[in-house]
C-alpha cells in the first residue's frame, strides 16, 4: 500500500504543477491529433513543418520514423530508460500481463517484440499503428483498431517487463533465456495474509500503459494484444484510475480509495540521484541487459471498503498515522512536515513503511485505484493496484512487505489478491532498436 517511505521534498502546489514542473507550459498544450497526422500524405505538411521532411512520407509504414518534437501530449518513447517509470504519473492505467503461447518460438517472440516496439513508438507519438484505422485495403481489417482516432497522445507511455516464466516455465527453458534470468527476478515469496488469485497473478510479459485518457491507454494494450495474437495471450489485465502516487511531489497529493493522501513522499521523477540510488539497475548488477532497467512489482490490493467506511475517523487516522484532511503526520500541522514516527501508533501504516523504519529503503510507486464491479456478495471489488519500481526487489519490496504483512494495522482492511514480478529492461534508445533486444540479441 502506501509505503510512506520517502524523504521529504517539495511543497504542496496546484494540480497543474505537473506540467509546470516539467517545463511544459499551457501555451503549446495543443495536442497532436492522430487525425492530423494520419496518412503521411496529408501529414507531409505537418511533418515537414516539424523539420522531419519528406523522408517521412517515403517511410510511411515505418513507425521508427522519429516523432515530432515532444509536446505536452507526447512523452518520448526512445531514451536511456523506459518511459512510464520516472515519467510524471498520468491519470489512467491499463496494465496487461501476457503469457507466451505454447506454440510460440524464440523467433516469433522476437518478431513480435520488434512489431510491438514500432507500434509503441507510433502510439506514444500519437500516431496510428501500421497503415492506420481507416486506410489500407478495403478488403482487409484495418491495422489500427481506431478507437483513439482523433485523440491526442495524452502523454501515453508504454513500459514492458519480462516475468520469470519467460526464462523458465515448469522447468523448461522455452526460449533459451534461462541463463539470462536476473537473480533479482525472484519468484516472490508468500507474504502473510496473501490470498492470491492465480487468474490475476504472474505472467511471462507485461505492458503498463499510462495515459491521461483511458481510451488511449486501452487502445494501446488492445493493439499490442492484437499484434501479439498467436505469440502471446492476455493472462490478466487491470484498469486503473485516480493515480494514488505522484512522482511530482510539487503537485497536490492524490487520495486513495480510503480517502487518504497517498504518496506524499514518493521519489520525484526529476530526482536523478534518488532514481540512480533506488530505481535504476546499475552496471554490473546482474546481467548487462538489465543495466538501466528496473524491477516492477505489481500487487492487486483489495480494500474492504464497507468495513472501512464504518470505521471511526479516529481509527482510520490511527491506521495511517496521518490526519485525513490535511494528510499531516501525527503531531505535525502540514502534510509535508517531517513525520515524528514515535508520535504515530506502532502498528500504523506510515510508521512501518517509512524509510527511517526500514534502513532508508525506498521504492518508486505508481499505483492506481481500481473498482471492478462487485464481488458477488454485494461488496465493492475495489482497492489499489500497486505498482512499485526498484533497483532490486529483494532489497526493497520484499523486506518492506514482509514487515507490513506481519504488523500493519491496515491489514485488517486490505487483502493482497494478485501479484506479479517483472524485469523491465533499459529503454529503447533509438528507432530501429526494440524492446528486449539486449536480452535476446
Amino acid at each position: 500500500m502506501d509505503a510512506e517511505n520517502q524523504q521529504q521534498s517539495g511543497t504542496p502546489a496546484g494540480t497543474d504543477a505537473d506540467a509546470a514542473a516539467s517545463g511544459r507550459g499551457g501555451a503549446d498544450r495543443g495536442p497532436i491529433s492522430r487525425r492530423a497526422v494520419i496518412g503521411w500524405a496529408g501529414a507531409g505538411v505537418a511533418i515537414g513543418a516539424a523539420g522531419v521532411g519528406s523522408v517521412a512520407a517515403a517511410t510511411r509504414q515505418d513507425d521508427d520514423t522519429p516523432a515530432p518534437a515532444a509536446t505536452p501530449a507526447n512523452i518520448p518513447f526512445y531514451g536511456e530508460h523506459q518511459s512510464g517509470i520516472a515519467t510524471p504519473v498520468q491519470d489512467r492505467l491499463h496494465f496487461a500481463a501476457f503469457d507466451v503461447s505454447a506454440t510460440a518460438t524464440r523467433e516469433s517472440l522476437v518478431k513480435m517484440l520488434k512489431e510491438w516496439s514500432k507500434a509503441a513508438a507510433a502510439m506514444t507519438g500519437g500516431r496510428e499503428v501500421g497503415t492506420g484505422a481507416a486506410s489500407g485495403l478495403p478488403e482487409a481489417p484495418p491495422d489500427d483498431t481506431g478507437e483513439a482516432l482523433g485523440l491526442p497522445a495524452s502523454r501515453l507511455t508504454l513500459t514492458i517487463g519480462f516475468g520469470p516464466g519467460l526464462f523458465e516455465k515448469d522447468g523448461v527453458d522455452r526460449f533459451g533465456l534461462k541463463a539470462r534470468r536476473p537473480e533479482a527476478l525472484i519468484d516472490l515469496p508468500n507474504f502473510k495474509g496473501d490470498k492470491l488469485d492465480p487468474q490475476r497473478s504472474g505472467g511471462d510479459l507485461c505492458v503498463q500503459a499510462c495515459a491521461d485518457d483511458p481510451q488511449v491507454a486501452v487502445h494501446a494494450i488492445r493493439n499490442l494484444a492484437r499484434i501479439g495474437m498467436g505469440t502471446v495471450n492476455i493472462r490478466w489485465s487491470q484498469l486503473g484510475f485516480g493515480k494514488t502516487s505522484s512522482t511530482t511531489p510539487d503537485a497536490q497529493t492524490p487520495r486513495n480509495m480510503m480517502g487518504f493522501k497517498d504518496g506524499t513522499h514518493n521519489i520525484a521523477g526529476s530526482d536523478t540521484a534518488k532514481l540512480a540510488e533506488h530505481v535504476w539497475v546499475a552496471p554490473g548488477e546482474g546481467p548487462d541487459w538489465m543495466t538501466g532497467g528496473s524491477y516492477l512489482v505489481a500487487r492487486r490490493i483489495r480494500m474492504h471498503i464497507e468495513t472501512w467506511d464504518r470505521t471511526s475517523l479516529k481509527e482510520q487516522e490511527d491506521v495511517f498515522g496521518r490526519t485525513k484532511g490535511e494528510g499531516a503526520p501525527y503531531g505535525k500541522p502540514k502534510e509535508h512536515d517531517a513525520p515524528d514516527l514515535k508520535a504515530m501508533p506502532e502498528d500504523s501504516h506510515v510508521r512501518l513503511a517509512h524509510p527511517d523504519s526500514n534502513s532508508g529503503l525506498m521504492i518508486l510507486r505508481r499505483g492506481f485505484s481500481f473498482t471492478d464491479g462487485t464481488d458477488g456478495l454485494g461488496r465493492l471489488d475495489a482497492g489499489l493496484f500497486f505498482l512499485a519500481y526498484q533497483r532490486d526487489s529483494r532489497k526493497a519490496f520484499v523486506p518492506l512487505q514482509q514487515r507490513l504483512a506481519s504488523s500493519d494495522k491496515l491489514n485488517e482492511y486490505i487483502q493482497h489478491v494478485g501479484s506479479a514480478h517483472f524485469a523491465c529492461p533499459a529503454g529503447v534508445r533509438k528507432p530501429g532498436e526494440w524492446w528486449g533486444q539486449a536480452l535476446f540479441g
Partner: protein
Amino acid sequence: MSARRSTAAALLTLAVATAALAGCSQKKDDKASADAVKVNATDSACEVSKTSFPAGHVVIDIANKGSKTTEVYVYGDGDKIITERENIGPGTKASITAEIKAGSYEIACKPGMVGDGIRQKITVTGDAASSGASTDPRLTAAVDAYRTYAQEQADATIPVVTQFADAIKAGDLEKAKSLFAPSRTGWERTEPVAESFGDIDPKTDTREDGLEPGQEWTGWHKLEKSLWADARIGDDEKKLADQLVTDLKDWQTKIPAAEITATSMANGAKELLDEVATGKITGEEDRYSHTDLADFAANVEGAQKAYELLKPVASEKDAELAKTLDAEFTAIQALLAKYKQADGGYTSYDKVTEAERKTFSDAVNSLGEPLSKLAAAVVVK
C-alpha cells in the same frame, strides 16, 4: 451463429446473386440483379442482354431454355477462360460472378457441352486498374472449386439429416442424439454460404436467445433442447424434424446461385473462426448437447478448405502469411485431435475445463487474426 445472422450476409458479401432463382434473395442484391448480364441459352442461340458493361464485379444470369445441358464461358484473348459454369441442365438457371477487367471478351454457350460454342463478342468498359478486379484464373478456379465443395457438403448432409429426422419420427431418442452432431457437419463447414441465403439460417440454426419477437423457434437447436433438456419426442418434434429436412433441401438447391468470390471465401473462412470464437468457445452454441467441439472442428475444416484453395495465390503474394496460416491450422488441428473420441465424435464440451477452453480460445485467436488478412492477400491490385 444466430446472434449475428442479421449482419452475416453483409459482412460476407456472399449475397445470393439474383433474380434468376425466384425467391432466393428478395432484398440483398437488387443492384447486382439489375446490373446482371442475362444470357438466354438455347440449342441454337446464345442471346446476351448487353454487349457492353462496366468492369469490376460482373454477374451473369444464365437461363438454359434449350433441350440439352449447356455450359457458358467467358473467354479473353486467345480463348483464355475468365470464368465458366458447366452442367446447366435444360430448363434450369445458373449464375456466374466474376471480377472482370476492362477489355474485349467473348461469351460462349455450348449446348451439349461440346465444341467452341455459340459466341458473342462483348466489351467491358472502364479503367481496369481502378476496378480492382481480378482475373487471376487461379482465383476463378478456387471459387469454382469452393462452390463444388459447398455443394458436396450440402449433398452429403441430406442423407444424414434424413436419418436424424427418421430417428426422431421413430421416437428413438438415443439414436437421434447420436445423429445430431453429424447432421450439422456439412452446414458448419460451409456456414458462410448457408447464411448467405438469408431465409434458411433462421429456420434451421437459430438458438432460443436469437429469436426475433414473434419468430417461431424451429430447427436443430429446438430439437436439441427437446432431446437433451426435455428428453422428449412428441408430435411437435416429429413435425420439426420433417421441416428441418425440407429447409436443408432448400439450402442444397440454392448453392449454385450463391455468390462466391475469392474475397468472400477468404472472409468466410475468417467468419468461421469468428463463429468458433464467439459461440463455440463459450459453449453457447450447443448448450444442451455439449457437442460444440464437433461444430468447432467442422468450422475449422471449412475454413481450412477455403484457405487451401486460395493458398496458391496467397503464398505467392504473402508467403509469410501463408506460412503462419499453415502453422496455425496445424496447431489447431492438433489441439482438436486430442479431444477426438473413438467413435469419431468429440469430448462433450461440459467436460472441457476453463483452462482448456482458454487454450482453445488462444488457438482460435491465433488463427483468426492472420486469417483476417487472407482476403487482402488474394486481392489483385
